């Protein structure tokens, strides 16, 4: 086992797949010679050549549109969108084409494109380098949506995504690229070497799409979350002094409802947390599903903690970010409700 941060784990997933499967290609802005602005594709072009690790024009719609055609012609493109905030120019190609192709052609055509994109705030990126638009994708039928919270999952899930014949939008919470982040920006940064999920096999393995993980068992309350907030939630539960069961959803669609149900049936209380804006966020789907499934077990309303319903402001990053305090307050609210 090696120690890897999330960037290295993601790099390793692509490396492994480029090596194993000659049909895999990587494309995106600055991914080739330079190795990506976050270095996720560092060294891959040197190793696999310019025809398999391809720099692309600055046109997200063109990257996704051409990736679809590349996929239809038997290759497996892994396309990087430099920031999730810049995925929207490609949204039509994702929602109208990539997501629809298998369905509308009666199963005759499909394109196994994986779209990787860094998301989330906490790096002083301001409103155009901090967004978490996952809910916009989970509402489009025909796309798998994934967000890992650690290097081990990142590599395993990315390998599954690349191997999948379905289109996958793979969100990478950039705040935790280099280390887990418990939500407190004033503490010194912690590297992944301090975290068990920073141990990552060098070779091939996969983590299945569609399976949540109970990252911390507990009995008082279920916290359903994903991405950066997995770590924040764990700290917040400690802060609140509550024995929380923390579930990392990992795969937003397909959603592992069973794991959520089992937990909430046990705890009777539930908090849903994510970094994306709250209104119409993925938390709404989680909360609604859970109340549908577990209503009779619920002892308190399901609460949501999320980004405020504003753009992500540069100056108020830490007032905006749903940090420990906010999560802890919500935990207490759920625990106290009666």
């Amino acid at each position, binding site marked *: 086992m090696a120690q890897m941060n999330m960037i290295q784990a993601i790099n390793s997933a692509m490396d492994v797949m480029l090596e194993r499967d000659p049909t895999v*290609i990587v494309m995106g802005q600055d991914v080739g010679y330079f190795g990506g602005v976050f270095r996720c594709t560092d060294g891959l072009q040197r190793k696999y050549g310019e*025809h*398999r690790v391809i720099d*692309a*024009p600055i*046109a997200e*719609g*063109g990257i996704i*549109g*051409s*990736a*679809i*055609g*590349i*996929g*239809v*012609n*038997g*290759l497996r*493109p892994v396309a990087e969108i430099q920031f999730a905030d810049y995925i929207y*120019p490609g949204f*039509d*190609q994702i929602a*109208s*084409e990539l997501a*629809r*192709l*298998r*369905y*509308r*052609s*009666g*199963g*005759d*055509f*499909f394109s196994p494109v994986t779209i990787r994109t860094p998301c989330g705030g906490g790096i002083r990126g301001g409103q155009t380098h901090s967004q978490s638009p996952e809910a916009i994708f989970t509402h489009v*039928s*025909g796309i*798998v949506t994934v967000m890992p919270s650690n290097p081990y999952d990142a590599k395993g899930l990315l390998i599954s995504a690349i191997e*999948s*014949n*379905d289109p996958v939008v793979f969100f990478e919470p950039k705040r935790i690229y280099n280390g887990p982040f418990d939500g407190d920006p004033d503490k010194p940064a912690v590297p992944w070497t301090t975290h068990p999920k920073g141990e990552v096999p060098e070779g091939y393995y996969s983590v299945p799409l*569609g399976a949540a993980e109970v990252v911390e068992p507990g009995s008082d309350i279920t916290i359903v979350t994903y991405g950066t907030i997995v770590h924040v939630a764990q700290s917040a539960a400690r802060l609140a002094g509550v024995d929380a069961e923390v579930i990392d959803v990992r795969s937003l*669609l*397909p*959603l592992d*409802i069973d794991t959520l149900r089992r937990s909430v049936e046990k705890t009777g209380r539930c908090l849903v947390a994510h970094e994306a804006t709250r209104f119409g966020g993925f938390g709404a789907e989680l909360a609604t599903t859970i109340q549908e499934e577990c209503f009779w077990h619920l002892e308190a309303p399901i609460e949501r903690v999320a980004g405020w319903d504003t753009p992500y402001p540069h100056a108020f990053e830490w007032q905006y970010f749903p940090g420990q305090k906010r999560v802890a307050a919500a935990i207490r609210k759920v625990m106290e409700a009666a």
Partner: protein
Amino acid sequence: MSNKSRLHIPQPSARPGEEPDFSYLPVSPAGAVDRPGISAKTRDIEHLAHEMVRVLDDDHQACGDWDPKLEPDDLQIALRTMVLTRTFDARMQRMQRQGKITFYVQSLGEEAVSVGQGMALKPKDMLFPSYRNQGLFILRGTGLVNMMCQCLSNTRDMCKGRQLPVMYHDKEGRIFSISGNLATQYPHAVGWAMASAIKGEDHVAAAWVGDGSTAEADFHHALTFAAVYQAPVILNVVNNQWAISTFQGFAGGERRPFAAKGLGLGIPGIRVDGNDLLAVYAVTQWAAERARRGGGPTLIELVTYRGGAHSTSDDPTRYRPSKEWQAFPLGDPLERLKGHMIREGHWSEDKQSQLEQEMKDKVDAAWQEAISFGTMSEGPFLDPQDMFEDVLEDMTDHLLLQQEEMLALKD
């Protein structure tokens, strides 16, 4: 130039009640445009975007370097496919009017585009059509029955009832799934061609959009990517003068031919008489050969006219002169090919009548067969359960539940 900026609103040359006027469309004489070699420098052939490649003259004679010198047999295949396409269209149009299918789009007047271009390409070349390229499917043997079953959304529908009529595809025949979203197929074709190049194969891709659709982002993306990677792709713009009610000037066709839109990226453009099957064939073959040899993309503008309504939901008498088609200087592609074949002595009006009857019978027989697989009102029907398939490769749990919910409801 006026003395003040003022919003310019492009104007079609004629509106209902006015005389059709095609003076805006410069037409080169047949044979007048030179045919450069496929290794010509793009810089030296920019004029091809501004003139109009034509082979058949007004007397139906083939002229000039672009004459592809097709064998009589090939001409007959072309004519046959064009007649079949028109017959098929007419029948399906009628079936829509009778309520047998929900929607239809004809290619009336544009048959030479699909047939001529389809013939010039090789079977392993991949086609990315718009909804007005039925001739490609007919030519590649998708089969009338299959196409009709698609339009009927019946038990043999290749789309399993999921798409509007005319949104065909043909995996075996290497024709991509048609999208209702305009121009989206353009970057797909470029991507497909990029993959072909990456794999070191020599298959080319070809894509079609209408004049109006060139305003979409995907057009720009496709051209940019095609130029940057020198993808082996043929990007076709079918300029049939109209985009529903909007004439081609609103897509930027007022000042320059659509064929010129790639010149700024170094993509050669050829404007061709889209109703001249020989010219269409010739330029397509030229572009395909060029792409196959690593010469990169070509943009072909096919100048034609949308002979019918935009679709069965449209009424063009509201926005254009009803006699405009008759006045179109490039005529009717069927008449012109027929005239040429008669002139060359391989064909006659008699044979034409026979052919037309034969095609009518063929379409009739196909229709009878197609409806045996179900219509919108009479079974057999597709199983609504199938609605939940193919969203992803495997059905997710939440779709399984929804499927069960639907089934429970039916009982």
